[in-house]
């Protein structure tokens, strides 16, 4: 077999390949040759083959069959073999492969080798891919090497120690004594790696940090080293463009930052040196600027005196005016970090920052945008907003969403007047409408509702906006909602702020219908439009027939959501016409809801809020929100995470009010959640006592005990008992635990318990403990029901039981009326 080709030739051959397919072919041929060579256990050429394999791996081809070969190379005595073997191990092996543990012994031997280069190889490999077991085994050796006098080994051992600490943080104390003398070295390599090690230790453990601050007097040592670096003359081995070892300087500055954070003494000790570095560093080259950047970051982060901070901000200001893009980018980034603390100082540079918005460079634009948002305040809002809106017009699409959200937030906080606010939002919607986030629509609607005096103006502007172009969905949604609500204002033409426009009812309906028909409208938008048309039936006078026609057409729409709405509205026209005006009244002023609060109940997407069934005059705002709060107490007020689905299912039901009682008088719930529960228990978290199968560990900490339990059902050998618990803090919630037992001689299998309650209640069924009721009363099925009873009406329940018994399927319906008064009063 001819000698395998050298790596160099392989690279040359691969480079001549003109297409990807040719390259793949060459590589596959070579892989096959390498594989047969491995099989022959050829020692002489193994290292050459592995080297080629590593190159092919780097190009992206699989190379896992070389892993064992790397191990063989590591075990060999030749240095060239070991070198390739360790390189291969670093590249091909990692913790996921079990093979890597075989290396531990080899590394251990090599760490004690007589040649420093072999020891160095072992340290590198351990520091690169050592797993936690390997690190635990070999940490002692590494620590020993950290104390040698050989600087070549010391620096490698320090980096290896960093990796060990990352993998096994408990071993940090082991390296502590070795660090005492590390900073006394002259060799910059050792100094640099020691600083890295100290940084890692300080970042990981606050105890270490405190220890280094007090006992070791680390700060004075670092200050001394930094001073030497700056003051010493030209030293050829460490010079980079006129500055002595800038990399070490940057590292030391970073460590000083960590040491000085939140600590007055350390910060004071480093004030002088920081000022010295800041003033003496040469800024004509990039190197100097890198050091200045790090200095500025350190000054801003520690408890420096105010003079120093002013110096730092001035440096950043100078950076901003520099022509070099890199420097400007870096300045913008650091200003962003400091704007929270030194707001006024940064404000001075506002105009420069705003100019950066017009820069061509994407990175700079992004930074400038973020910084502009941070700088907006009550005084400069008008000017800044003009610039930001101009930016929104002309920026790349990837920025538009962030910019729009930022503008909304800023406008919300600092708007000088409602009209300005609405104008700004309209401008954003028209320019960047499709990039606006989804939650902007409900927020905007809420804002409009709250500014009562602007309704006419708003609806007029929105109408004009969508007249020309109804492709931007958020804009159309908001416009449809407003037209639906305030259509009467639009028709009557009363607008104080602007020239009122003359619009007829037909024109308004035209535009809404075109939104409904248009291909560009998404399903949600169509829903908004349909609801708006419906609302107009009470606000418009001459076109009610047209509205009826539109609504009935959509009763057979393919889109289920639209169909449901149309059918409901149709029913409103036909059977419940007397209620229509009450149901479609103006929306009450919504309570201000924070963006991370409960939004699901109040901010429905244009759905008519369930007007309370008793004739309460508007505003009926508090009622729906308190219901929301009750529900959320139910869901959040105990220590179990219950199943959520019942919440949304009740929402559409209550929206129709009396309309959707297709099932008669009772709202059947619980069925979908309980049936799949035995099969798919995992996502429904069960309270611990259900898994034990029995006893009544109370769900609340503050239960009212003493509510008598009842037998809800007893027939054909099946008995179901209810036990009650109520919480003192939340009296509208009753928790019922049912226990089903079976006194016949055969088991009842596939037992499913379903319950239904009247509309004024809400029911939640948790999953049962099992689906088999064992015979002869040897065991029970337990299930928990939670009932929300805000109006404190008498509890009634209809239950449905299905099970298999004696080979046949049984089913029974029953009503439970004998609830004790204490369970619901």
């Amino acid at each position: 077999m001819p000698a395998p080709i050298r790596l160099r030739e392989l690279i040359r051959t691969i480079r001549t390949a003109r297409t990807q397919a040719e390259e793949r072919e060459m590589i596959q041929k070579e892989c096959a040759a390498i594989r047969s060579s491995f099989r022959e256990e050829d020692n002489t050429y193994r290292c050459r083959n592995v080297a080629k394999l590593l190159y092919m791996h780097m190009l992206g081809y699989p190379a896992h069959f070389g892993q064992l070969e790397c191990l063989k190379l590591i075990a060999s005595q030749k240095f060239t073999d070991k070198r390739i073997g360790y390189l291969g191990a670093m590249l091909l092996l990692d913790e996921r492969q079990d093979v890597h543990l075989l290396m531990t012994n080899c590394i251990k031997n090599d760490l004690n080798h007589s040649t420093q280069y072999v020891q160095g190889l072992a340290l590198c490999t351990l520091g690169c891919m050592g797993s936690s077991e390997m690190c635990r085994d070999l940490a002692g050796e590494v620590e020993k090497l950290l104390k040698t006098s050989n600087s070549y080994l010391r620096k490698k051992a320090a980096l290896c120690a960093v990796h060990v600490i990352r993998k096994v943080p408990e071993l940090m104390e082991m390296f502590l004594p070795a660090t005492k003398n590390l900073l006394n070295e002259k060799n910059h390599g050792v100094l640099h790696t020691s600083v890295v090690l100290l940084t890692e230790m300080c970042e990981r453990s606050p105890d270490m940090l405190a220890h280094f601050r007090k006992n070791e007097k680390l700060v004075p040592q670092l200050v001394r080293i930094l001073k030497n670096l700056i003051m010493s003359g030209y030293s050829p081995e460490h010079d980079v463009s006129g500055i002595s070892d800038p990399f070490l300087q940057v590292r030391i500055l970073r460590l000083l930052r960590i040491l000085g954070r939140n600590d007055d003494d350390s910060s004071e000790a480093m004030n002088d040196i920081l000022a010295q570095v800041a003033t003496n560093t040469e800024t004509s080259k990039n190197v100097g600027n890198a050091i200045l950047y790090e200095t500025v970051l350190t000054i801003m982060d520690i408890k420096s005196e105010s003079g120093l901070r002013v110096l730092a901000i001035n440096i950043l200001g100078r950076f901003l005016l520099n022509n070099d893009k890199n420097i400007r980018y870096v300045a913008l980034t650091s200003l962003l970090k400091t704007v929270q603390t030194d707001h006024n100082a940064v404000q001075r540079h506002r105009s420069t920052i705003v100019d950066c918005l017009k820069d061509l460079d994407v990175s700079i634009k992004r930074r400038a945008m973020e910084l502009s948002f941070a700088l907006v305040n009550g005084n400069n809002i008008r000017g800044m907003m003009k610039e930001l809106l101009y930016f929104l017009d002309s920026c790349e699409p990837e920025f538009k969403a962030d910019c729009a959200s930022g503008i909304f937030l800023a406008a919300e906080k600092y708007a000088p007047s409602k009209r300005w606010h609405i104008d700004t939002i309209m401008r954003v919607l028209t320019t960047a409408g499709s990039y606006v986030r989804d939650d902007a629509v409900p927020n905007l609607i809420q804002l409009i509702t709250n500014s009562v005096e602007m309704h006419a103006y708003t609806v007029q502007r929105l109408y004009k906006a969508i007249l020309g172009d109804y492709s931007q969905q958020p804009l159309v949604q908001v416009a449809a909602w407003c037209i639906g609500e305030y259509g009467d204002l639009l028709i009557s033409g009363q607008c104080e702020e602007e020239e009122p426009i003359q619009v007829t009812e037909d024109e308004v309906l035209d535009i809404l219908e075109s939104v409904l028909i248009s291909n560009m409208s998404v399903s949600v938008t169509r829903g908004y439009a349909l609801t708006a048309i419906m609302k107009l039936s009470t606000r418009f006078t001459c076109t009610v027939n047209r509205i009826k026609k539109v609504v009935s057409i959509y009763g057979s729409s393919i889109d289920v959501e639209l169909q449901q709405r149309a059918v409901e509205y149709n029913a409103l026209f036909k059977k419940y016409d007397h209620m229509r005006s009450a149901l479609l009244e103006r929306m009450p002023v919504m309570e201000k809801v924070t963006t991370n609060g409960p939004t699901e109940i109040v901010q429905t997407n244009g759905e008519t809020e369930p007007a309370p069934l008793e004739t309460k005059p508007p505003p009926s705002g508090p009622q729906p929100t308190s219901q929301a709060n009750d529900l959320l107490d139910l869901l959040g007020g105990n220590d179990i995470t219950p199943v959520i689905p019942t919440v949304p299912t009740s929402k559409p039901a209550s929206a129709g009010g009396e309309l959707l009682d297709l099932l008669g008088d009772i709202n059947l719930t619980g069925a979908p959640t309980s049936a799949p529960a035995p099969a798919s228990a995992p996502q429904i978290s069960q309270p611990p006592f259900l898994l034990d199968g029995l006893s009544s560990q109370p769900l609340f900490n503050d239960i009212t005990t003493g509510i008598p339990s009842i037998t809800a059902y007893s027939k054909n050998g099946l008995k179901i008992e209810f036990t009650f618990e109520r919480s003192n803090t939340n009296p509208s919630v009753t928790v019922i635990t049912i226990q089903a037992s079976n006194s016949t001689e055969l088991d009842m299998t596939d037992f499913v318990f379903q319950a239904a309650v009247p509309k004024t209640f809400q029911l939640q069924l948790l999953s049962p403990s099992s689906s088999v009721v064992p015979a002869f009363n040897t065991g029970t099925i337990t299930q928990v029901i939670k009932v929300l009873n805000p109006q404190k009406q008498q509890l009634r329940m209809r239950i449905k039981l299905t099970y298999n018994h004696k080979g046949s399927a049984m089913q029974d319906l029953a009503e439970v009326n004998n609830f004790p008064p204490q369970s619901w009063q």
Partner: protein
Amino acid sequence: MIKFFLMVNKQGQTRLSKYYEHVDINKRTILETEVIKSCLSRSSEQCSFVEYKDFKLIYRQYAALFIVVGVNDTENEMAIYEFIHNFVEVLDEYFSRVTFWLILYCERGKNTSWG
């Protein structure tokens, strides 16, 4: 912390790659092509720092070769920029026969401190 170090040519062929955090082998090629695409699309007046997913890329172009370093947020970008050049000078010192380093050094002229 440096996440990866790449040397890629203008056609997108990887000349050298070293990853300091585990990345699946098929994801590597995708990463490399995307990185080189974002670097190639920038002109010489634009800054050398690009944001890519959750890394920051710092790149430097030497003739037909791009050296790209991917870092996370804690690094000083300008120091890394200097580090790339330091690396190139070390390679030049070590492998003095490589030809396009010569081109490079003629361009840099007298700015180096090598005597």
